[in-house]
């Protein structure tokens, strides 16, 4: 620490920093460093203990996974038992999915309709805003945490358990929950923010990703499959934010891949009977990197193609690449077009596990799975599965023409709910 003012010569512009500003800057750097060091398995288990303590003291409400949600049990990396609710879910949608890959969630809703699972498709949900910001490092922790808790509060009021569709949201929420529970200052400040919109702190007992729901329901889905997929070679890509970020909180199963790799997407591929193949860059990121795809899109695009698509096609000749995150599907799918124009030959269709399961169960490839939004060529895949995509496409065209003439579009209506929304005294449920 220098006593005098220091002058920095940034391209001939002189910026002077006073001693007080230096101290503040140093303090911010130390704070961020301390926050980034959290999140190992021991710390995570400590957080769960502290959550129970805070509930006992009455400081927070925990949204428990009760019997009415009919939970099923899975194991996490440390052997802890995690409860996955299966019915009465509050669909926490993903902005990227709704905007770029609508087939992703409509496939999931269709599967839930087929299995007669009641859910709440709420219009009163805000985006988690994690695509541009990120809980621990680069931006306003309070704003992100407040958005997280607001969504959880809405789910609690509707008496439905939040099911998080996006891996990005999932990772962001795991971090935010950690901060809110462990750090008193953040909790008090966020509570003040929530009070302004007549809400209070409700923390879910488990943060559940939709791929974990597919994992626990895989046998029911496999029973209803219509097409034989045993000749399909499937490569699986697991998103960084589900299993690398806060690695304690994701599903591992000793029977699937020996418990070494996370179970969810691989398990449903195996349950449907397809061939699961392995490739040398399994653990590599897809290149999406939250906002990296917006600010460093050249590197994202090249990385996705040369580190993931090319090795997968060259080593395995797989028919399809399946992932479970918005960003991964977007990046891996849309990054293929530029290298193909440069002259490289390797290409592979990229779809989500929900779309694949829905296709195997007989969903319409265009009305439900919305495959026309995907860039990489999926026609070979559908031919191999035995789905007549040409007539489905003509059917879809006719459907669009009918809507233009004024017909009603086909909507996915959830099955009727058994649980009632919670009684709200005044506006806030916390007295």
């Amino acid at each position, binding site marked *: 620490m220098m006593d005098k003012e220091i002058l920095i010569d940034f391209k001939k512009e002189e910026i002077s920093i006073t001693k007080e500003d230096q101290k503040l800057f140093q303090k911010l750097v130390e704070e961020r460093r301390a926050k980034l060091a959290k999140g190992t398995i021991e710390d995570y288990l400590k957080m769960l203990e502290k959550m129970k303590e805070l509930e006992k003291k009455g400081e927070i409400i925990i949204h428990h996974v009760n019997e009415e949600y009919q939970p099923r049990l899975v194991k996490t990396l440390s052997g802890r038992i995690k409860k996955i609710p299966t019915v009465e879910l509050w669909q926490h949608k993903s902005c990227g999915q709704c905007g770029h890959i609508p087939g992703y969630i409509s496939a999931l809703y269709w599967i839930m309709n087929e299995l007669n699972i009641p859910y709440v498709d709420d219009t009163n949900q805000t985006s988690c805003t994690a695509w541009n910001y990120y809980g621990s490092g680069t931006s306003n922790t309070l704003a992100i945490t407040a958005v997280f808790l607001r969504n959880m509060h809405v789910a609690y009021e509707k008496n439905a358990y939040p099911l998080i569709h996006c891996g990005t949201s999932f990772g962001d929420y795991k971090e935010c929950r950690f901060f809110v529970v462990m750090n008193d200052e953040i909790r008090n400040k966020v509570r003040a923010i929530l009070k302004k919109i007549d809400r209070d702190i409700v923390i879910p007992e488990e943060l559940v990703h939709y791929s974990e729901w597919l994992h626990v329901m895989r046998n029911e889905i496999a029973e209803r499959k219509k097409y034989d997929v045993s000749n399909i070679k499937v490569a699986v890509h697991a998103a960084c934010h589900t299993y690398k970020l806060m690695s304690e909180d994701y599903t591992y199963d000793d029977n699937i891949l020996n418990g070494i790799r996370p179970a969810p997407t691989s398990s449903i591929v195996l349950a449907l009977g397809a061939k699961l193949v392995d490739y040398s860059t399994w653990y590599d990121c897809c290149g999406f990197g939250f906002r990296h795809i917006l*600010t*460093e899109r*050249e*590197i994202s*695009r*090249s990385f996705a193609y040369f580190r993931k698509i090319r090795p997968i096609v060259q080593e395995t000749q797989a028919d399809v690449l399946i992932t479970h995150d918005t960003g991964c599907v977007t990046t891996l799918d849309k990054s293929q077009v*530029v*290298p193909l*124009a*440069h002259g490289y030959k390797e290409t592979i269709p990229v779809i989500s596990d929900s779309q694949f399961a829905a296709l195997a169960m007989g969903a319409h490839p265009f009305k439900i799975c919305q495959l026309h939004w995907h860039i990489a060529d999926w026609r070979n895949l559908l031919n191999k599965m035995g789905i007549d995509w040409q007539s489905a496409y003509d059917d879809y065209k006719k459907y669009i023409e009918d809507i233009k003439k004024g017909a009603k579009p086909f909507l996915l209506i959830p099955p009727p709910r058994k649980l009632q929304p919670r009684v709200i005294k005044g506006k806030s449920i916390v007295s």
Partner: protein
Amino acid sequence: MTENKEEKKERKGQYIIEREYIEDERIIEPEKLDLGGVDASGRWGLIILPRVITDFDHSLVEEVKKLPRGKHIENCWQCGLCTAVCPIAHKEPRFNPRYFIYIVKMGYKSEINKLKGLFIFAKAVVYVLKHVLSMLTQLVL
């Protein structure tokens, strides 16, 4: 015409935030690229090649060993003393004798190819023969 020449002088891929970490040869910025009717030339069609070393090619070091006193390349265990005393290395950061010996011994073809065309070799050899050898012999004796 002069406008085009000035544009070309700007480094390719200058808009990439981490541009300094990427070697020029790895950036492919197409002048014309067509994505089925959509124009993707320039920035929209830029790709960056990976830099992973994938193989060892020992044919080069076998050639070096056939030169007079070339067998001594096997004595090098990368202590770095040569670069530490090298006056050229202190002036030109890309001239690193330890590094040159290493990539030749290991046969990293991709790294050797990056050095082709560096004319500092010629200048350096002359400098070494004139000054350094005489200095070193004086130090040792």
